[in-house]
């Protein structure tokens, strides 16, 4: 034992350059890289065959390029091997060794992927740049002389791509609106920079931007849809009804001690609606007389404009609905007791059974009346069974009491969210469009497709938002709720000051994901006939000038969506960093 120790210690390891003092051993090398296990052997063999095959094929197809790639690869491998064998690593070779050539399999993989990237890259390059034309005059099929892309179509069809069917005289307003929104964004951006955050004017910039964002839906609407003036200047019914509603809300909140009132705040509540209403009507009248914001038909919006409008509208609308649904799903209120529910359920069942079997029209809505007696008119067994549909009522009551303890808010939210999430977006959009005429009042003009799609889309988006918000709410520790309760603040204040601020901070990344998701899936409206960015393709390539230039347009959209999504997710990371200030 002792002798062994002395022999080892008598030969201290020679300190070699770098930390790589391990000597090269061919046996170990083979074992580690090739013959270690059956799986490894098979894998390396297959990889070698495929790589060599691709290499040979590429030498035939594109010798120059392939020689360069192969040369670079061989030199890098050689450098690594030399560095490894003679422990002569420098920074570059060590990086190569660790990241590309750390074993035979990875070295082959590097070559294979290098060739692969070269094939794809050169294909795209020759199509998109080398053989392409950028001249808008050379897009007509008769004068297309290039094999590659005709990017001129993007410039030539810019009108359709940007605003769709919008009349050109409104372009100015679209530009003004774009500048307004960009300006707001710039203000927010400046106001939240670390250098300006703490200064006084930074705070003011931030405040102005925040007010701007709150008002942005109205501003956008005025710019993009215009204002339609209708007589009379003040609709007395709306004026009074609105005021009464606001005052009623105030009274209820006051009665349940959610808010405290003094003469000042009371006056603010009472005057809120009249002031807002008068302001709106005033703007409308002025704009009408000066013909500033003449109305625009919303169905004329198209192209990128429509895509952006969808993303903004749907996100802004679905966010509050999503929060409400999430709160509803988590609502911990006393359920409706069984002794209220069962009598109603039984009465409904009895009435339903009576009408569907003995059937007459007592209390039946007129449009159902001539059909209520299912039993008498049934033609087969299935229809006879259907006549007993009212038996589903007690079943539903039982399920409701069992699953939700009579908590209707929860049941409603859960069913709403789950049903909507179970159906593809495009089905909802389609349904919104085709079903709208059935549900609108008879005398109405009919809903424009735009609004129908907005409704369908918002319903869809808000149930996804609801699940995100629910996740955020669940992430707040129980102690936060308890601390808020123990201080005696009410539920509204608890959510407003304690829970939602924390939940929303947690939610910034997933919400940004949802915003990007909405923006991306807004392309689906093209499938229900809207002329958004993607939908405009059909109109463009139908033009003989740009016949068949789909690929150019799709690639453009692909890149555009990618850039916008990347920018938004970058911005969300910045927001997250800022919101995290002071919280470790």
């Amino acid at each position, binding site marked *: 034992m002792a002798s062994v120790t002395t022999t080892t210690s008598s030969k201290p390891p020679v300190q070699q350059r770098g930390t790589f003092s391990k000597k090269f051993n061919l046996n170990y090398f083979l074992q580690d890289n090739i013959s270690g296990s059956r799986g490894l052997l098979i894998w390396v063999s297959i990889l070698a065959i495929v790589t060599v095959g691709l290499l040979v094929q590429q030498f035939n197809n594109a010798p120059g390029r392939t020689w360069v790639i192969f040369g670079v690869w061989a030199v890098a491998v050689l450098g690594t091997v030399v560095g490894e064998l003679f422990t002569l690593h420098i920074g570059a070779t060590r990086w190569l060794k660790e990241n590309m050539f750390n074993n035979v399999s990875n070295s082959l993989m590097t070559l294979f992927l290098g060739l692969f990237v070269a094939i794809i890259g050169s294909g795209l390059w020759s199509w998109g740049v080398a053989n392409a034309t950028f001249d808008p005059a050379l897009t007509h099929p008769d004068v297309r002389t290039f094999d590659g892309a005709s990017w001129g179509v993007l410039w030539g069809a810019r009108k359709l791509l940007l605003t769709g069917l919008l009349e050109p005289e409104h372009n100015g307003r679209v530009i003004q609106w774009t500048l307004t929104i960009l300006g707001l964004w710039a203000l927010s951006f400046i106001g939240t920079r670390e250098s300006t955050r703490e200064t006084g004017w930074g705070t003011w910039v931030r405040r102005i931007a925040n007010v701007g964002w709150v008002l942005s839906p109205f501003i956008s609407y005025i710019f993009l849809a215009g204002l339609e003036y209708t007589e009379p200047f003040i609709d007395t019914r709306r004026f009074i009804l609105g005021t009464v509603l606001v005052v009623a809300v105030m009274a209820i909140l006051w009665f349940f001690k959610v808010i405290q009132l003094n003469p000042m705040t009371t006056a603010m509540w009472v005057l809120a609606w009249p002031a807002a209403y008068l302001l709106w009507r005033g703007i409308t009248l002025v704009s009408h007389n000066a013909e500033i914001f003449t109305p625009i038909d919303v169905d004329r919006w198209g192209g990128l404009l429509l895509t952006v409008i969808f993303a903004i509208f749907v996100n802004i609308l679905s966010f509050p609905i999503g929060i409400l649904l999430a709160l509803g799903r988590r609502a911990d209120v006393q359920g409706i007791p069984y002794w209220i529910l069962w009598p109603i359920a039984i009465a409904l069942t009895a009435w339903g059974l009576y009408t569907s079997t003995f059937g007459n029209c007592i209390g039946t809505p007129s449009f159902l009346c001539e059909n209520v007696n299912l039993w008498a008119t049934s033609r087969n067994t299935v229809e006879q069974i259907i006549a007993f549909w009212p038996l589903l009522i007690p079943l539903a009551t039982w399920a409701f009491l069992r699953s939700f303890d009579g908590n209707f808010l929860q049941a409603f939210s859960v069913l709403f969210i789950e049903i909507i999430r179970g159906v593809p977006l495009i089905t909802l959009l389609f*349904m919104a469009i085709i079903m709208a005429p*059935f549900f609108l009042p008879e005398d109405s003009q009919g809903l424009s497709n735009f609004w129908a799609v907005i409704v369908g889309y918002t319903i869809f988006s808000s149930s996804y938002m609801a699940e995100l918000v629910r996740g955020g709410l669940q992430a707040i520790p129980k102690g936060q709720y308890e601390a808020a309760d123990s201080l005696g603040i009410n539920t509204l204040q608890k959510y407003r000051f304690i829970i939602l601020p924390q939940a929303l901070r947690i939610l910034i990344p997933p919400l940004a994901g949802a915003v990007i998701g909405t923006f991306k899936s807004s392309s689906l409206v093209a499938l229900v006939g809207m002329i958004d960015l*993607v939908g405009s393709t059909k109109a463009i390539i139908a033009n003989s000038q740009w016949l068949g230039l789909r690929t150019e347009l799709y690639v453009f959209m692909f890149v555009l969506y990618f850039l916008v999504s990347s920018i938004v997710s970058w911005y969300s990371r910045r927001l997250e960093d800022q919101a995290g200030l002071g919280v470790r």
Partner: protein
Amino acid sequence: MAQTTVNPPGSDANIPPPPDEQGIGARVLSYIFDIRFLGVLGQIAFILLLIVGAQRIFSNFGSNVDKLGRAQFICRDGRFAYRCAYDFMETQAGFDIDDTVLDYVNTDSFWWALTNGIVNTFRVGLLALVATTFLGTVMGVARLSENWLVSKLSLAYIEIIRNTPILVQLLLLYFSVILALPDIKDAIQPLNLPIYLSNRGLIMAWPQFMSSAAIWLAFLVLGIIQFQVMWVYLSRREEKTGRESNKFGWGLAGFLLIALIGWFISASVSDNEGLLIADNARIDEVDDFDTVMLSRAGINHLSELETLPEEEITAVTLDVCVLRESSSEANFVNRLARKGIPFKISRNGSPAKAMDNYVDGSCEMFAAPVSILAAERATLENPNDHIIVPIDEQPLVWSIPRFERFNIIGGATLTPEYFALFLGLTIFYAGGLAEVVRAGILSVSKGQTEAARALGLSEGQRLNLIVLPQALRVIIPPLISTYLSLMKDTSLGVAVAFQDVYLVSQTLMNQSGRALQIMIILMLVYLAISLFFSSVLNWYNDRVVIVER
């Protein structure tokens, strides 16, 4: 310490009277402010609000149905009744579905068309689901690769795919990639495999079941039973003797052996396939074709055929009649093709038509199951001048695609639409899944790996026993959500005109004008799919929660 003591401590006068002994006013107020009462009141108010809203909407609905949609509820006998809402589904569909697996013609009913749509949805969805799982796992693992190039390329893939809409990806894939592939006559054939890629989609060799496959399948079932028995037996032996054995290896070997035996047995016992041919053709078995061909062409060896001019080959080509969509064709043709004998196939809709061709001489022989041939032979003028030559069959026969004039015949075809939708869904969802897989692998902490090493587990054991179970717990819930989204997004098939349930429904609506009814069916189909996946998810979560406790 400021304290105004009203009553001496401990006396009951300190306690207010119980609620039910208080004055009536106080009691009523305390009921109103009872948090439970307020909760129920709020909910009832909410319900009333919903009812009022629904009534407004549905009263419009009623009058609108009267105005716009009365025609939607006409019974077969022409009367108006709501319960006849679905009567129209029994009428003829009147439109084609190009890509079906079930037999469908445009005179079938709406119900059947819809069923075909549903089958198509599952056909593309389930295949994409499997492919997504595979590609997503590969990409997720690649993202963690120590090879810089692999990891960065995988990152680029994930970022690009996740930041662009699936619709644009799908359109690019369909219009700019698949439809831009070469025409069928210049179809790409990778590595000379029987796979053809063209703007008609992907055509590849595909196994077809012969009638003897039933026997073989029975053997396969036997093999599976054997596997189980072997597994249980070896496990017991392991427990008893403590000696480890390769249970999977032995089980698999047994299975393969039984499958092989079954293959030969079923191939030798079956004599279902036959060939009807004139007696004077001097053919008693399939091998006789060699000599017949040699004497016809006047050559010594079949390989000399290639040297002959085109017309001579055409002259000696065998004319074969078969039934359309019959597996007899692949079975017979594969034999001829293996020998290098030139042949020409004419496909007939019914045995009678094939026999007409046979009788008038436009085909020399008729390949079909023996039972059909025997019946048809009896209808000939001189049955004894014609013989039925038996053809060997195996349980499975490869239907191999081959060029015939300007088309490719045989094999299985993935239409461009199916192919595009399948690839589009796979590529898109694999991007999301890659992130899930990556997160799952990273979720297994380093400490776990170290603990496993400390216990002396081998790398394989570590992966199987420690890493995978923990990673899967993180991976599976989002995986199932991904599956659900994927199944829903098969509805994007409408962008490439793939006739899934959504597009079929849309066509049905246009054909029948019954939007409401079809919308309900469509919603129910998707809800059923989503219900299935969420119950799987719930089941899994419940199980995992129990395991964790």
